[in-house]
């Protein structure tokens, strides 16, 4: 069963996710950043749902295992839509929203097919393996897409401070998750570390988004050239 540390991080994460939604409502930005809020609400519901299933069925039950992996896949897809929402913001002046939606759907379908291709020879618990593989691949695809989006921000000289903060924090989040999955594959004997790290990582995104809502107004601007690692 999870210990006091796990429960503390769990509760903290749920509170932080609720705070993001409250902050966006207070700043009257809920509808504008709907996909980000949708992800936070989905994450909040998942956190509560996991607790209920855990309390009812136990950590080692099939119910909890299935619920955990399926909810994780759904959350990753929601985060993927949040990322596409950010793409729409950055590319809105180019009128490329339709292309972004089409491309994101194709990429999602492609990742799902690729994940199926990786595990289709496995006979045991194929569906759970598929969901795990899909999540893992979506995190890496998310990282690559966030990197491309950051490139677009620099190229198109996007100046909205909030949007920049959302994108950069999402980049840090995806990078940490992708690195964690990779380390889990390289050093499976250190599994106890790679299992607990995502809990800590998952608190970073709501903290950063809360900060972005509270610290920056919708009109706040930043010079993107100042943010590039190599000065432009």
């Amino acid at each position, binding site marked *: 069963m999870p210990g006091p540390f796990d429960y503390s991080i769990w509760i903290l994460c749920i509170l932080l996710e609720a705070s993001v939604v409250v902050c966006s409502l207070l700043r009257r930005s809920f509808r504008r950043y709907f996909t980000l809020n949708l992800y936070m609400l989905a994450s909040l519901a998942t956190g509560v749902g996991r607790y209920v299933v855990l309390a009812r069925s136990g950590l080692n039950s099939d119910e909890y295992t299935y619920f955990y992996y399926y909810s994780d896949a759904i959350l990753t897809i929601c985060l993927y839509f949040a990322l596409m929402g950010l793409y729409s913001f950055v590319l809105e002046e180019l009128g490329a929203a339709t292309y972004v939606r089409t491309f994101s759907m194709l990429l999602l379908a492609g990742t799902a097919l690729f994940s199926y291709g990786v595990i289709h020879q496995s006979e045991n618990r194929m569906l759970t393996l598929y969901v795990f593989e899909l999540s893992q691949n979506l995190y*890496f695809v998310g*990282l690559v897409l*966030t*990197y491309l989006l*950051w490139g677009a921000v620099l190229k198109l000289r996007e100046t909205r*401070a909030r949007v*920049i*903060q959302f994108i*950069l*924090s999402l*980049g*840090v989040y*995806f*990078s*940490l998750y*992708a*690195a964690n*999955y*990779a*380390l889990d*594959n*390289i050093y499976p004997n250190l599994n106890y570390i790679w299992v607990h790290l995502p809990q800590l990582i998952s608190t970073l995104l709501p*903290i*950063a988004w809360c*900060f972005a809502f*509270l*610290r*920056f107004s919708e009109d*706040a601007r*930043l*010079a993107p050239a*100042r*943010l*590039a*690692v190599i000065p432009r």
Partner: protein
Amino acid sequence: MMPAIILVVSLAALLQFFVSYCRSIIAASVKQPLSAEVRDVTGISRAASGEDFLRVVQLLQLCPARPQDRGEIRAVDAYFRLLSFLQSALGRIVPALVSWTDAERGQCTYFAAVTLERRIAFSRDLLAQQMST
């Protein structure tokens, strides 16, 4: 092989996103002028130097913390440590890196001084509220 490639790509991206994120936090405070009072306290007369960062952070810890600036101070503190590490580890091999890290460390100090200014104002507001009740 594939996980190793993913790990390298992820860590490279993480470094770049983290640096840009910290720079975005710092950039938001660069335009704010420092009051004469904070300049006196911190000893920042003209350009802020990286050497003063730890001292300004110590001063920050003496003031009551504002809940909304804890996260950003931690992020910038981690960024400052990363810059110091880069300077000491690669400074001799890549001399151009020294001037860049010096400038960045100076910006970190300026950010800490601006945060100190905000905390002083916050403490005064708290005191004023207590006096009025």
